[in-house]
């Protein structure tokens, strides 16, 4: 793998920056190079939110993601805003709960009921980011499932491990189903 560039986007409060950190952490655990960065809005809260991760086998110089090959969009606004930058051969993963209008694109699109499942199966919208992460990793193979779980468990608040493990499992499953299609 040369350099995998992933953008996780949505709105503030969805935990996308945490997701980005966990993803980069997992990559590091596998001995890869990784850079994670994020955008801060003018008020650093509310509004759009964006986390970016670059995973590579070699040193990463320029640390920003310009044309991601993977875009996760967890809000309509984010989807509309960032789709343009996605590579033509890229992968778009959208949360069908928020993104109703799937724009036209040459990328492969996976529309997943991420938030819906988090709510339905776990009763906690708050872990939608972990569900998304599981699905994304499953679909892209960015990192291994094991290291991702390690990274998740080391970064979530004490006492929420089980919840997050379940969220991750749901995510993996969601991804797998898509791949099987």
């Amino acid at each position, binding site marked *: 793998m040369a350099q995998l560039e992933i953008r996780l986007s949505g709105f503030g409060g969805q935990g996308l920056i945490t997701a980005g*950190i966990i993803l980069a952490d997992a990559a590091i655990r596998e001995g890869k190079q*990784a850079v*994670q*960065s994020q955008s*801060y809005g003018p008020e650093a809260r509310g509004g759009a939110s964006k986390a970016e991760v670059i995973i590579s086998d070699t040193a990463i*110089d*320029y*640390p920003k993601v*310009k044309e991601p090959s993977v875009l996760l969009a967890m809000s309509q606004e984010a989807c509309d805003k960032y789709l343009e930058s996605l590579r033509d051969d890229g992968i778009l993963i959208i949360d069908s709960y928020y993104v109703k209008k799937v724009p036209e694109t040459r990328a492969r699109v996976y529309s997943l009921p991420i938030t819906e499942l988090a709510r339905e199966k776990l009763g906690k919208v708050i872990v939608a980011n972990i569900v998304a992460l599981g699905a994304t990793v499953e679909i892209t193979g960015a990192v291994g499932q094991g290291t991702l779980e390690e990274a998740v468990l080391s970064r979530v608040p004490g006492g929420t491990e089980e919840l997050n493990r379940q969220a991750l499992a749901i995510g993996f499953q969601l991804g797998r189903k898509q791949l099987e299609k």
Partner: protein
Amino acid sequence: MGENERQAVLMSGNEACVEGALLAGINFFAGYPITPSTEIAEGLAERLPRHGGKFIQMEDEIASMAAVVGASLAGAKAMTATSGPGFSLKQENIGFAAMAEVPCVVVNVQRYGPSTGLPTSPAQGDIMQARWGTHGDHPMIALMPASVQESLTLTIEAFNLAEKFRTPVILLLDEVVGHMREGIVPPRKEEIMIKKRKKPTAPPEEYLPYRAEPDGVPPMANFGDGYRFHVTGLVHDETGFPRGRGSDGDYLVRRLTNKVKNHFVPMVEEYLTEDAEIAVVACGSVARSAKRAVNLGREQGIKVGLVRPISIWPFPEKAIKDLAGKVRAIVVPEMNLGQVALEVERCACGKAVVYRLNRIDAELITPDEILAKIQEVK
């Protein structure tokens, strides 16, 4: 850091600065929150008491800088961290630290200015301020990390230089480096060289607190160690007391300047410059883009190299002068309207043509832009 495995750890530049400070032996931090440096204060608020050190949030940046100087005089390894507006406020007391020769580290995580600017956005607009922000002639050391790993190592280095030269040292991060996360391998305690201020060997009666040794630096007693000496921001002689004489000023301010100028070894990274016909000079996060651009240029057969001043102040004059004697053109990309370029132009002395590349729209300059410039001047 606790663990001793060589497993890389993911952390941000600001977090790495905290780790570096702890490894360097920090035991005092005074600060005032400001984006995008706040994580440094927050990290040390949590970590310092666990190491027996003290954290205090002062009423403002002026007080933070003052408390840091006071703590250092009492023997602490002391640091503060801030961003643009706070850096402006600290200037008077940074000058005091330079004049009274009080070692300390001042972190400025640069954000977009002037004034309140764009508080969460990156820029490299405080480079000249780091050198010239306080009034009067004074020495200044400033380091600019380009990676999270370097944010850690240069924080240690900043403490070492501060202790070695008895002077404030500025760690000039930019928001990109401060906030991005990378995997880094924190060094083991025993791998690190820790420099401590020279202690006086003379007994208190004979101690001249501002009598410099051949390296230009006077040994430094701590308050409370029985030396009972005087510290002032006025021009003073070797005893530390002011006598109101211009000749004392001449001696003192030249010594302060020269101790750094003559004994500080500029830190520069050179990359593929040996056979270069074109060079890029870039610092901090922009140097990452520049390195990529250089690699892309080389792929296209362009003989291009990179010089990255790690210590931006004192400016690495010799490296740039040598470079200008070697290359035809120098490209200076910066996230400002041209600050490093001023010094590069000066040092190039007409021998190489200097091209500026400036971006101030709160985005990191991309490798492509730099490459385009390289191609243009080729």
